[in-house]
């Protein structure tokens, strides 16, 4: 599909830049009071979803987290649809009913962000099991944070995938923090990968800021999974550039760590990589500018898009219902 290694990684770079600009734009829009609710920015972590999703087919599925914009955009969700969702517009991917924490685009296999830490894990293994029952060879990539490895569903889901040999790629997006807490203080033992292996899921650790490394590992693993080898685990070490939520100044992060992380910005790493592949500075700048423009256009459109009609609040609840009774009290 992609012409050359240069073009290929230029495209990945573009996707990462879209996510970065999307996140920064939305954080600003939230602080400005334009976007309601909460924004969990994935700035600094773009290499993970972009690297992994670059080796997935459209009919492969992903599950996501509360920090899910990047996962959706990397899997191919419509940029405007996602922006409109965050703005709570009728045009949003979920018709404005989900917002940032519930962005989803089933048409590209993005089964939804999730407001519950580790909530995507059982969904991912079940999706893989269901796909198997339907005779599909699609695989599922399951994104979760370093905080999620301390919740029960992590153990249960990995064990589950292993016993049924399900094609699930577990992707631990280790951004060093669980909300406002350094994860090293709440996670014992040698880390996520050792836990996975102890549950029968082999894997490896990669540089979570290097999209090429992630892509290479994911490519290998997805091929193995599609061939029936069972689940795989990818531990991606990275760093959260911003606060846990948009309004969190994240003062609990040691400045030296932040500075070091900025030097390993996945977009810088990618730029270096593109330069080494022969792309020029100007070409890369133009990719970046193009990505920025796309986000700005999406925002401009979302800003002026219509909100959902009030009746939409009562749609898609359940088919068998008591609309009279259920609305009587609150109407």
């Amino acid at each position, binding site marked *: 599909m992609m012409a050359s290694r240069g073009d290929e990684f230029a495209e990945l770079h573009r996707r990462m830049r879209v996510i970065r600009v999307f996140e920064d734009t939305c954080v600003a829009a939230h602080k400005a009071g334009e976007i309601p609710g909460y924004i969990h920015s994935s700035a600094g972590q773009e290499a993970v979803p972009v690297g992994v999703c670059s080796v997935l087919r459209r009919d492969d*599925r992903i*599950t996501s987290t509360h920090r899910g914009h990047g996962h959706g955009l990397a899997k191919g969700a419509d940029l405007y649809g996602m922006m409109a969702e965050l703005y709570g517009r009728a045009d*949003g*991917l*979920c*018709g*404005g*009913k*989900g917002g940032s924490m*519930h962005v*989803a*685009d*089933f*048409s590209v296999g993005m*089964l*939804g962000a*999730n*407001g*519950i830490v580790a*909530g995507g*894990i*059982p*969904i*991912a*293994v*079940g*999706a*893989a*099991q*269901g*796909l*198997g*029952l*339907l005779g*599909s060879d699609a695989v599922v990539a399951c994104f979760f944070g370093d905080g999620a490895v301390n919740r*029960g*569903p992590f153990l*249960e*889901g990995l*064990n*589950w995938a292993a*016993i*049924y040999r399900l094609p699930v790629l577990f992707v631990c997006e280790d951004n060093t923090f669980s909300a406002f807490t350094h994860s090293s203080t709440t996670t014992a033992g040698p880390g996520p990968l050792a836990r996975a292996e102890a549950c029968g899921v082999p894997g490896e650790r990669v540089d979570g800021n290097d999209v090429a490394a992630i892509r290479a590992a994911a490519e290998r693993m997805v091929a193995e999974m599609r061939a029936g080898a069972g689940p795989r685990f990818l531990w991606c070490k990275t760093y959260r550039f911003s606060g846990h939520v948009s309004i969190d100044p994240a003062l609990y992060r040691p400045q030296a760590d932040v500075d070091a992380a900025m030097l390993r910005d996945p977009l810088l790493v990618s730029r270096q990589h593109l330069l080494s592949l022969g792309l020029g500075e100007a070409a890369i700048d133009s990719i970046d500018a193009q990505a920025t423009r796309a986000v700005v256009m999406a925002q401009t459109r979302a800003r002026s898009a219509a909100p959902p009609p009030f009746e939409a609040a009562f*749609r*898609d*609840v*359940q*088919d*068998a*219902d*008591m609309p*009279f*009774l*259920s609305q009587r009290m609150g109407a």
Partner: protein
Amino acid sequence: MNTLTMGEVAARTLADEMRRDERIWVLGEDVQLGGIFAQYKGLFQEFGPKRVVNTPIAESTIMGAGLGAALVGTRPVIEMRIADFVMPAIDELVNQIAKVRYMFGGQGRASVVVRVPHGLHPGSAAQHSQVIESWFVNVPGLVVVAPSNALDLAGLLRSAVRSDDPVVFFEPKSFFKQTVDMPDDWPAIPFGLARSVTEGDDLTIVSWAQAVPAAETAAGLLRQQGVGVNLIDLRSLWPWDEAAVLASVNRTKRLLVVQEGPGASGFGAEIAAAVAEMAIGLKAVSRVASPRIPVPFAPELEAACFITPGKIVAAAEQLLQR
């Protein structure tokens, strides 16, 4: 006519539906052996290990994996063993299954049936006896049914596995071994349709699940006293048959709600409240339920929790005096 146990009726019904629709499959602990109430007997033999899946002891993931499998287009039947074991899976049921369709704007459906044998059972004590229906009535997105007998269970099970909505399917666990004479064929029963068990104009009794047989006996005893009871077995708790209940109460002016499990914020409260809001000329309403105590083990204490004809008759007599 065939004489079958309720467990066999349940298993045959599901087998029927699984033959009809290849997307239906079962997951849960020990289901390949037929389930602890034999309600899946023979299914593993007929449908094999891909459609009758033994799972680890991991209720959260049984529930959550069912959801994932539904989102890609299969129709899982999620076996929970007993109501008490749903608790480790409430997050997946309430935070995820009940909400996915809505919060994703209709992009996906959680077409699952969550099967939950529930209710009192002798000697089962505090952690194996619970009735938690009302929690799920309180959760938007969920259909809740609680049949009291084999025919209703079978008919509602058909509707449940055909439904695109997630259904929390409570089953009267003490009745699985009882035999019934079943017709050769049994149809689907729509959600939200109650069954009138006895007719009468003096008093409306609304009941469901394992309390129904005691209510039926009580209705017979009251009839001998000259009191005509319209006993309504709700069968579905959400949606519930408001029309049938209101029509009855508007006639009798007296409502007795009879349920197993603690009355405080039990589902009976919703019925009593809704009737109090909507009925015309209501004279009296009352509830018979288990007291708000954990279920004790010793039979002498456990008796405090069981719903008996005697308790119902006593409450009815009081009600008729008001």
